[in-house]
């Protein structure tokens, strides 16, 4: 199963500010009553984007200027809480290809990586600079350079860390581990045979 090598993501960006944005906020639990991930994109951030009658609230994703965005800029501890992969699935199906945040919650980071969504870590000040440029001109082209671990826009180049194993996976087209894990099955059986509880 050949996977795309993701060395960079290029596109417009939108800033969804806030710290500790949890996966319940990203995709409310009631939208998880489904047996496939299809269609989750339209429910991304639903309860902060829509009022009780389903009308748009003031939210960056409802702003026409940012409808083309494929890069999400946000704050600290993004994706905390529930392990639901529905959250990164909704982000991807909405159209996002990369995320820049101050830092990410552990399980969310892994879930994004295995879907091929680069999660880049930048400082608050740098995220604010990107956000300011995007606010001034929503058509600003932003690049998450996975290889160089940078975010670029206009004439600016800012450092943006992508953790080692995730970066390797994205760059080498092995961000989804299934093929490599499957190759290891004979060794898996050997390891399991050494563990008495696995015999049950």
């Amino acid at each position, binding site marked *: *199963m050949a996977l795309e090598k993701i060395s960079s993501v290029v596109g417009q960006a939108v800033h969804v500010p806030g*710290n*500790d944005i*949890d996966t*319940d*906020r990203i995709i409310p*639990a*009631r939208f*998880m*009553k*489904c*047996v*496939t*991930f299809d269609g989750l994109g339209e429910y991304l951030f639903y*309860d*902060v984007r829509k009022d*009780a009658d389903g009308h748009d609230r003031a939210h960056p994703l409802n702003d026409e200027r940012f409808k083309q965005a494929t890069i999400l800029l946000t704050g*600290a*501890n993004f994706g*905390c*809480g*529930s*392990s*639901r*992969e*529905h959250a*990164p*699935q909704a982000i991807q199906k909405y159209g996002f290809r990369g995320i820049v945040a101050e*830092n990410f*919650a*552990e*399980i969310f980071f*892994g*879930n994004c990586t*295995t*879907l091929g969504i680069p999660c880049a870590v930048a400082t608050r000040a740098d995220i604010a600079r990107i956000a300011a440029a995007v606010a001034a001109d929503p058509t600003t082209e932003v690049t998450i350079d996975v290889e160089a671990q940078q975010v670029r826009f206009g004439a600016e180049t800012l450092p943006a860390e992508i*953790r*080692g*194993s*995730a970066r*390797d996976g994205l760059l*080498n087209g*092995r961000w*989804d*581990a*299934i093929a*490599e*894990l*499957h190759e*290891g099955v004979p*060794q*898996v059986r050997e*390891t*399991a045979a*050494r*563990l*008495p*509880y*696995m015999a*049950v």
Partner: protein
Amino acid sequence: MAKSLFEKVWDAHAVRTLANGQTQLLIGTHLIHEVTSPQAFGMLRDLNLPVLMPTRTFATVDHIVPTDEFAEPYRDPLAQAMMDELRRNCAENNITFFDRGTGKQGIVHIVGPEQGITQPGTTIACGDSHTSTHGAFGAIAFGIGTTQIRDVLATQTMALGKLKVRRIEVNGTLPPGVYAKDVILHIIAQLGVNGGTGFAYEYAGSVFDNFSMEERMTVCNMSIEGGARVGYVNPDQTTVDYLEGRPYSPTGDDWPAAVARWLGFASDPGCHYDDVVVIDAAQIAPSVTWGINPGQGISIEQSIPDPALATSEDEKASIEEALEYMKLTPGAPIKGTPINVAFLGSCTNGRLSDFQEVARVIAGHKVAAGVKAIAVPGSQIVAAQCEKLGIDKVLTEAGFEWRAAGCSMCLAMNPDKLIGDQLCASSSNRNFKGRQGSTTGRTVLMSPVMVAAAAITGQVSDAREVFATGRN
């Protein structure tokens, strides 16, 4: 060389190093439920891969089950579809399913331990962040996403980077009326909601030595609320005693061998920890949250934070956002905040000892007028145990509704939901915006006995005053 439990379990389950530097880690025990697994089975079908070791996956249904309805089809066709899909996937792949008809169904993190499936020195994964619960037994238990569920089904492994280990020692004796829930709320408030990112938490010290397995589970359960994907307690005689005679526990000659092996997984004296935090048990008080994440907690005696007194712009903004949502007044005491709903249950506090302790203190009291109070056992076995002891009667006489096992109002993927901006005194684990099923609903997390006190007074209360009693 001295090793921590985490290292020993990791080393015993490490299959090989992957090209990206991560470890292919054997997952000995895989638990699944209806919400996060159907897509994984779909992916397997797309890849034309079988389940590699069907006897090492166990299923139950918990998130979507109605707690007031047993007959199928359920009123909610989406819930029924998820139920049907899990049944089909388990049947087609020969996976043991603790369905509602078995009498063993319940919240996945309650079922695993009570069946004896959760054992020391094992690796466990489940598509649910509260999988850290199982660490109470000295297992390394990971909450995972759906793609990783696929990986575990297909290969019984997943790709993982090694975590650092932080030992959290709680020493001394907890004051009367302070419970395991207060310990973990205190830890999260102290270390922050993302303080544990990249760490496994090893809980230790005299408080944990003296805790029952159920108390240890309550603490490990909420590790992820502090950012730690894994939390564990070293196995000891308490662990062994809990597991003896459980359906999946070893028997006969296998039992003493298993016990010896299990105890050998405990962290060695002098092993390396990446960080150590020491907490004095005497400083922990009955705790409640006031905000919109589990780290926004205070003791019942404290006042709601004032953003004007915040020490950083960040803190000020987060207090303001939380108080606006919670409709609470800065600087006011949290005690006395009116409640509308009281919820007893969840994978954090839905076990026998939780209901036993509530029944002990609540007998003779009545739920305040206007408060909706529900008690939801974490499993059918917990329900049966409570009913045998008459705990259900004590609770219903006090004014609680006694429901069937499930996740219920912890996350409201079922008919149990807050309405409008109702405020819920809840023994669950998350107070996120909208968590309990209403986009404006408000959650105040606390121990089960504090929920009982709030139910009786109709307001957030100090259970030590309401019941004029303390810990057993």
